[in-house]
């Protein structure tokens, strides 16, 4: 397959899922902000790197 990935849609989708998960956690439980404080930056770094990798032109 040579189809390019819509990087903006992919990154937005992943961010939306993360935020939705946080909202569900808060709705049906109590958010552990120390976990979020660790997981959020790691997730953002991973998603950012994925975005960079996907947007690299294929040779």
């Amino acid at each position: 397959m040579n189809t390019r990935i819509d990087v903006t849609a992919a990154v937005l989708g992943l961010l939306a899922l993360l935020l939705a998960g946080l909202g569900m956690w808060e709705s049906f439980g109590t958010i552990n902000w120390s976990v979020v404080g660790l997981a959020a930056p790691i997730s953002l770094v991973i998603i950012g790197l994925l975005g960079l990798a996907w947007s690299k032109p294929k040779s």
Partner: protein
Amino acid sequence: MTNTPALRRDRHDARIGGVCAALARSWGVDLKLVRIGTIILTVITSGLAIAGYFALWLLIPPVGSDKIPVRRWLPFTRNWTDTQLVVVVVSLSIVFAALMTGVAPGGLVVIGIVTLIIASGMHRPKQQPTTAPAPLVRHVEPPRTEFELAARAWENRMSVVYTGVPLHLMPTAAPSVPAKPSGSSGKVWFSVVAGFGAVWGVLYYIGLRNAPVPALAYASGFLAVLGLALLSSVRRPKRPFGLASAAIMTGLVTAFMLPNAQMIDRVIPESSVLIVTSEAQLSDSMYLGSGRNSIDLSELELTEDLDVTYTADVGEITIVLPHDVNTTVHSFVDVGEIVHDGRSLKGIDREDTLTNETDPDAPLLEIEIHLDVGRIEVQK
């Protein structure tokens, strides 16, 4: 590695000065990502990134030129070396930004590092073309038959020949048949509507069986559906119309509804603890400002009915009700949570009333609490 193109600003891709477009092309990443990154950097550095942007705008030459713009406008800089020029422009930008925003040097370091990294990529050697230019003949419709495919390949080949491109640079592979769109954006939106319905139904069922489901759960559920729809459409030739905008708007609403007491605990320090034991200590109206406020009325003794109003901007208000006084508490919160005797109500524009009648002959204390953002907790 010198395969990446030199930094050059292109007016055709520019929104402001073409800096983001130049970075995106040089780094080989999506232009939208660079623009989003610039906006985020601007926000987290309190606007300092704007200074970095203008520094780059002054330093990056336009397409088709090797002349640094600032040298054209300031002739006395033409004798300076590139390094001297970069250092002076970055330093002046940082000083100007610091004076304008008053931000600590931490943000300045970010801009300095970013600017120097970019500056180091300004003078990469120009690359000679190693592939043929794109064919001049373009068709909107995909080829329908093998014959049409072959005819178009020949047409492209001839068009390249007519432009004078050497034979060894001509494309050898036949153009591939474009992938057919895997469906219209309408289908994705139908799926989203079905997903919304499913989320709504599940949450309604949970609400019937257990405690009421907060509005945040609905917003999060809808956001999850939109996120999944976006992920499922990443290989489509065209993004479904309005899907990204809808996800951003729903995400903002969800993020707006998230603040709760625990988050406030982390960002707002304890500000006051008020212990009220007599009527003289009570005023009709009290403004609490922002912070965590505890008002202990447990030892209060009243001789007559009394109305009290507490108003606050951001934070937490905890009120402990008196034992031997009839009380009615009306709580209003714009964004956040109301907890009345263990009963929680979260969301936007929430209000709740708690009545505690211990003795019909005892005086009544009526309390009204208004909070913009945060948590109100009333304990019996």
